[in-house]
């Protein structure tokens, strides 16, 4: 009897380990995460508008249909990224995601405080390698450090009513995501 209880108890313990390890392994194992869904339609280091979600089709689940969205799938292995995004009339935001969909930084137009959102995205190593005097002049430049070499920048512009959607799309169409090669 005691022996049977011990077997069951060890089964439960082992079950706990199985549970924790499967939860932790899920982000590595997932084949349909946002990055994998977007990869086929987004050339690297280019700002690409996303199709609006419809009832039949959406590139990702739970997209907000009131927003026009554009994505830059970045790869920082050959240099940093300069992001320029004109602000739309209503509301514009930029969110940075790692390869595993973790939103590590987000900013909206008001917090950016200008007509155009300008950001530099680089790895911590590239940031450390920046010449010092450049860092000083960069005081009003917003520098974001990416925890991963690859990831996603998602630009969202709100259309407060459906008629304003073309305007929101237009604002995003002018956004740029440019690779800044390291000059040697």
């Amino acid at each position: 009897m005691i022996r049977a209880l011990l077997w069951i108890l060890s089964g439960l313990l082992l079950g706990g380990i199985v549970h924790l390890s499967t939860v932790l392994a899920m982000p590595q194992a997932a084949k349909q995460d946002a990055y994998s869904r977007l990869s086929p339609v987004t050339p690297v280091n280019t700002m690409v508008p996303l199709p609006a979600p419809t009832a039949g089709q959406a590139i990702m689940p739970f997209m907000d249909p009131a927003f026009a969205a554009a994505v830059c799938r970045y790869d920082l292995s050959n240099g940093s990224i300069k992001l320029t995004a004109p602000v739309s009339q209503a509301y514009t935001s930029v969110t940075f995601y790692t390869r595993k969909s973790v939103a590590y930084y987000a900013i909206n137009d008001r917090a950016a405080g200008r007509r155009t959102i300008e950001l530099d995205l680089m790895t911590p190593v590239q940031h450390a390698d920046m010449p010092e005097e450049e860092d000083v002049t960069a005081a009003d430049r917003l520098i974001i450090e990416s925890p991963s070499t690859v990831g996603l920048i998602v630009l969202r512009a709100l259309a407060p009513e459906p008629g304003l959607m073309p305007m929101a799309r237009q604002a995003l169409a002018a956004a740029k995501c440019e690779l800044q090669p390291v000059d040697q």
Partner: protein
Amino acid sequence: MRLLLGSLVTFLIAAAVGLGATWLTLTRGVAFGSLNVGAWTAWPKSGSVDIDPYARANIARTGELPTGMGDGVAFYARSDDAKNTFDGRCTFVVSGMTPAARYWTITLYDPEGRLVANAIDRHSFTSDEIVRGGNGNFAITVAPLARPGNWLPTGGADKFVLILRLYDTPIGVSTGTTKEGPMPTITRKGCS
């Protein structure tokens, strides 16, 4: 023989408990640090690097990109205030006020996060579109058949989810506060 049988039982229990718990937590959307107001629940930390392992696993599974902290916060509702699960054949009224935010949107999805097909192609309302009463309060009727005023069609879907997204809001940025001000109430008005 007894050893073999015992370890077999152990492994079976381990697999059932372990995988079962993982499946349950991922499909139910378990995550820590939730913000509950009435029928609404938000996980502000899921939009930051402080995201917990359960939310990470869930996001990887569904393929969505969470709303970033600094952009806004998303409140999910799967039932009304009396815990009646949303059913697309029933009528629900979402009414009242929202917390301070520059803009907000309310969107209806099926449980997998897809928009639900309907005759008027209406899936969401923004704070600018909504028709308000004299006191600034609003009421959205979530129903399968056309209603006057703010009608959000359910498309007759079996189950659905409502997401209220607040953009440019102080909510959720200062964590730990549970008094988040007024959230809309949700009440069921009967089923067809």
